[in-house]
């Protein structure tokens, strides 16, 4: 087995009586773009800081190329970080900022100036080389911070919410710059963010964390289509979470007794060991369709009434309620809305395929 570039092995970090990271296990391969995602306090930044050498794990080991680096200080390892605040040196010019790492490596002055300018040129900010950092725009400063870390040609780059201070147009632009850079250089990017759109747009794999624990690791598509627990189902996309008591199984389709009758769901790898317990499943809002009549193409259908609707651009989120009071959300297009007509009048059904349901852990 080839060894991973970075490995967190049973890593925990406690601050006094607060556990920031709880038994983290994660392997990161060479050349991967991996995002650690979660809301604030979920442990993503602490994990990154342990890798960068600013925090020492309370338990477990952080390995870089198979070697434990727990006790190495930040200046003893090669794990450059791009800060949320960028942390550019305000008393140095742009090019001096970029040179800083090379200066520490004792690269001769003409050589390091050349390499710094080359990176400024790569990132299209060569014209600002002699400026002070505070004379640049947010996006330009972002590039300086990237150049300052990349100029040392690291094999890994850590990014801590680097785009959170930019306006939304710039964020999309910089996402493009980052993905392109990562692909060109083939170095590993570990990207910490609270933003689902940033993580899903750029990362090969996303690690979803909550309260110090990893909830799920997978490709953006995996996480979106197959959230494996309540937290991820609630955190990623728009999911309905329903549940019921196991009744029977037929051709890989389970029947659950729910409040409004039987739910039919596809058995999956997440199947619980104990079928007698209540089973929950998730069904994405965009897989829930609404029509005026019963539609036999779908094996789940329930009579609903409208509780509210919310326009989100070209789509509409419908907040529905079944006869027993179960809440269901459905994402429909404006075109579908026109076919449905006024939902305040008449009956209609929410329906979905058992294929699109999958079991989640509590």
């Amino acid at each position: 087995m080839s060894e991973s570039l970075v490995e967190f092995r049973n890593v925990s970090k406690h601050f006094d009586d607060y556990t920031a990271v709880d038994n983290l296990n994660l392997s990161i391969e060479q050349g991967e773009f991996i995002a650690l995602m979660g809301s604030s306090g979920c442990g993503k930044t602490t994990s990154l800081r342990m890798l960068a050498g600013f925090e020492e794990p309370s338990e477990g080991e952080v390995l870089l190329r198979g070697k434990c680096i727990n006790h190495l200080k930040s200046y003893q390892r090669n794990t450059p970080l791009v800060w949320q605040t960028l942390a550019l040196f305000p008393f140095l010019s742009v090019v001096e900022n970029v040179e800083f790492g090379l200066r520490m490596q004792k690269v001769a002055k003409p050589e390091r100036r050349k390499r710094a300018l080359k990176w400024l040129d790569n990132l299209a900010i060569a014209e600002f080389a002699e400026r002070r950092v505070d004379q640049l725009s947010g996006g330009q400063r972002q590039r300086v911070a990237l150049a300052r870390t990349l100029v040392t040609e690291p094999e890994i780059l850590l990014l801590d919410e680097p785009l959170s201070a930019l306006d939304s147009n710039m964020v999309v632009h910089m996402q493009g710059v980052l993905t392109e850079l990562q692909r060109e250089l083939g170095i590993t990017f570990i990207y910490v963010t609270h933003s689902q759109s940033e993580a899903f747009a750029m990362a090969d794999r996303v690690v979803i964390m909550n309260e110090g624990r990893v909830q799920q690791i997978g490709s953006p598509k995996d996480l979106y289509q197959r959230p494996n627990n309540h937290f991820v189902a609630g955190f990623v996309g728009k999911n309905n979470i329903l549940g019921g008591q196991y009744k029977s199984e037929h051709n890989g389709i389970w029947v659950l007794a729910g409040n409004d009758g039987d739910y039919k769901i596809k058995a999956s790898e997440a199947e619980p060991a104990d079928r007698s317990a209540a089973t929950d499943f998730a069904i994405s809002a965009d897989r829930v369709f609404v029509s005026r009549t019963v539609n036999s193409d779908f094996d789940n259908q329930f009579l609903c009434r409208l509780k509210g609707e919310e326009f989100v651009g070209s789509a509409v989120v419908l907040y529905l309620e079944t006869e027993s009071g179960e809440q269901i959300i459905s994402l429909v297009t404006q075109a579908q809305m026109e076919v449905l007509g006024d939902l305040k009048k008449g009956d209609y059904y929410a329906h979905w395929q058992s294929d699109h349901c999958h079991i989640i852990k509590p």
Partner: protein
Amino acid sequence: MGLISNRSIFSAFFSFPPLIYQLAFFVFPLFFLLVLSFWSVKFYRVQPDFTFSNWLYIFEKGYFWKSYGWTFSLAAMTSIIASVIAFPASYYISFKLSENIKRIVLLSLIVPFFTSYLVRIYSWQVFLNDNGIINAALDYIGVGAVAMINTKLGSVIGYLTLSLPLVILLQVFSLSNIDRNLVEAAHNLKCSPLKTIFLVVIPAARVGLVLAALFCFILSFGDFVSPIYLGGATTQTLSILIIDLSKAGQQWPRAAVVAITMIVTLLATTFLALRFAYKGKS
């Protein structure tokens, strides 16, 4: 409309008293000092006149320039010594102490100001005297007595007593304002902790460090308590010169010339120091 005029009346109400105070007790006396330097003294009485003789008299005297040189260099030396002594303490207080302990330490740095400077200088005499505590100790270990009081060293110790707590306080405030991420960023780029102090911490805190040294210079340059009671007037500083001139023969106009020279020196030093502090900043 009503709101704006109300507000400007309100702000005027609060900004006028300090303005009037400044005019009455700073600008006007300063102007009077300037005028006074052109007056003359006849039969030990100061009388209005317009003569350059006081300026010529003072600037022609070798002892004035000698005194100027010593005052300036002792003050400059004190601000360098104070900055160097204070920095490790300030660094430790700002970066290593927890917030609670830091607060206690900062409070203890304010405590010296509770006691009159004069009292503190007198108490130094007990330590620095030829048969004082320090010399007794030196004698005991066989080094023998070292003259400390009535020397330039005594003056500098006095200046430090006056300014060191303030220098530390000002340094701590500027060091505490440094973005911690800058320090981490330096470490992250393989800069050792010691190098980080010189390459990141000091440049980032430059304005505050220069201001602290400047304050120390200003306090030492004008002080007359230390040179009299600890320096023993062995070195006639400009402050002592002013006292001597005004006492001996009522030479207030000549004292005014010295005072104005001091003020101009401090203004020039402040200007240069601030220019250096803010160099390359918007």
